[in-house]
């Protein structure tokens, strides 16, 4: 393959990368390579055998593999070139890519534009500093998911799950159906970390106890996990003396957050947002480096794959345009700030000249609020939760109401009057 002919290189072939590559081809980029370190396209979708994918994008209730295969087939149909078992190990500021695979060894090339679609990884025990021994049986929920759904073994019989993220709750159900007993799901916050439908359909359906305002303070066991100590926490998330109790178990699953995988981005000099852990981008999903775009969980962690696909399509389309025109026509100059009860907003900058969708999350759950974008738009929302991403669409016409020379715009989540 003549790699120097590449127009757009997409790094990572999960849902984000596939959507970006397909759209880049559709938008006219001639040669689009989709680089993936695994042996097949699709990323983590293969191990997500549960349903709930595509409700928004396809208006159908699909499983992960079903959702993935639609994109795999479309990628091949639209003429995307997959480059499998190829791991990108270098990314230069000049968009030079260095990658390794077993056929060609070390390869380098410089595409006209790049889409970062490396996804995210799970926070592990090391990030939590849980005291105790280091026995076998402590693993992330996603690792357990791979064991159960792809490799074919159940990692334990009596399980405690720390964290109520979606993967944790989904594994609580999956392990129960496979015959394990889930003793408890323990969440340090006063509310669940995942979607309500998962609390109902994964925990309540199977009578799995959920302990809010609790955490694991100790892991016991020499060779293998034998028990964990669980305690209630106070408002500062510190364990409360006298509330400890021990739950016998052989496995502790961690579902305590996801971290965008941005080592390559940092290597290339991409400026990151300390809150999202992903790149700072404009509404075309371009980073601070011209011709380098990002989409999906590498940019900010999503709760629904449908939004990953849509966002990455934007990045793919922008990358194609950049490859064809050699530059970006106009990039974001107006800074979007996160105001009251807003944790972050993506994109972080906008041009104010195109239709723009703002993706955001709140800090705290609240009811009866309105999302206010500067003084150009407000939208009433019945309830907001940190686990459920909000989308606000701004038309170019609305953005046209911004005063000439506007340098920043703030997004607030305000209480509405009434009850």
């Amino acid at each position, binding site marked *: 393959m003549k790699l120097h002919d590449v127009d757009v290189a997409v790094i990572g072939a999960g849902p984000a990368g596939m959507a970006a590559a397909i759209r880049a081809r559709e938008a006219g980029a001639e040669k689009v390579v989709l680089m993936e370190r695994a042996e097949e396209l699709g990323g983590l979708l*293969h191990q997500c*055998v*549960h*349903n709930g994918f595509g409700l928004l994008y396809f208006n159908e*209730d699909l*499983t*992960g*593999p*079903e959702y993935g*295969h639609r994109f795999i087939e479309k990628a091949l149909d639209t003429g995307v070139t997959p480059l499998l078992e190829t791991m990108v190990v270098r990314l230069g500021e000049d968009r030079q890519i260095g990658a390794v695979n077993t056929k060609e060894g070390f390869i380098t090339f410089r595409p006209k534009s790049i889409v970062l679609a490396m996804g995210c990884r799970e926070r592990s025990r090391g990030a939590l500093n849980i005291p105790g021994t280091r026995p076998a049986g402590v693993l992330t929920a996603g690792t357990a998911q791979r064991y*159960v*759904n*792809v*490799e*074919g073994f159940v990692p334990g019989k009596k399980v405690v799950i720390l964290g109520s993220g979606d993967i944790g709750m989904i594994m609580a159900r*999956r392990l129960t*159906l*496979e015959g394990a007993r889930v003793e408890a799901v323990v969440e340090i916050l006063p509310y669940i970390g995942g979607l*309500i*439908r998962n*609390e*109902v*359909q994964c925990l*309540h*359906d199977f009578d799995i106890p959920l302990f809010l305002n609790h955490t694991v303070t100790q892991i016991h066991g020499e060779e293998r996990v034998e028990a964990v100590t669980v305690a209630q926490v106070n408002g500062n998330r510190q364990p409360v003396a006298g509330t400890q109790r021990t739950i016998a178990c052989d496995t502790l699953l961690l579902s305590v957050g996801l971290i965008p995988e941005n080592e390559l981005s940092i290597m290339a000099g991409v400026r990151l947002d300390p809150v999202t852990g992903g790149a700072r981008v404009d509404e075309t999903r371009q980073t601070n480096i011209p011709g380098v775009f990002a989409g999906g969980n590498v940019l900010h962690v999503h709760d629904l794959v449908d939004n990953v696909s849509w966002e990455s399509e934007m990045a793919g389309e922008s990358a194609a345009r950049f490859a064809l025109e050699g530059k970006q026509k106009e990039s974001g100059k107006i800074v979007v700030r996160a105001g009251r009860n807003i944790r972050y907003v993506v994109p972080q900058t906008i041009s104010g000249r195109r239709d723009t969708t703002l993706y955001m999350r709140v800090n705290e*759950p609240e*009811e009866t609020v309105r999302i206010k974008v500067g003084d150009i738009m407000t939208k009433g929302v*019945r*309830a*907001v*939760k940190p686990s*459920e991403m909000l989308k606000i669409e701004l038309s170019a016409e609305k953005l046209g109401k911004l005063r000439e020379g506007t340098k920043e715009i703030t997004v607030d989540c305000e209480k509405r009057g009434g009850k």
Partner: protein
Amino acid sequence: MAQKKTFICIGCPLGCRVTLTIDGKGAVAGFAGNKCKEGEKYVLEEYTNPVRTLTATVLTEGSSQPLLAVRTSRPIVKTKLAEGMAVLAKVRARPPLKIGDVVVPNLLDTGADIVASGNLSS
């Protein structure tokens, strides 16, 4: 004697706790706690006929892939999920199979088939 049952509505992030009152004859007598009509619709369905899509994996034979992802072709009554798993424990999927191919027809007389939700090659 009237009975009360509580449900959490999954219609939106609000997650209303809806209390359903059932009168002495087993008829629905009222809803409380829901902030919109959707809540009533959801709770009525959950009370009268709660259904779920069963998703799982089955062991394979004659493939390098140890497992095949499967699902019910449509949601089945919630109380049959465990029984459905017991059926799947005995199934061995043989290649070639494509997404949508029937692996177990009419699971437990629910009218739903178990279908492949991934592809299986040898």
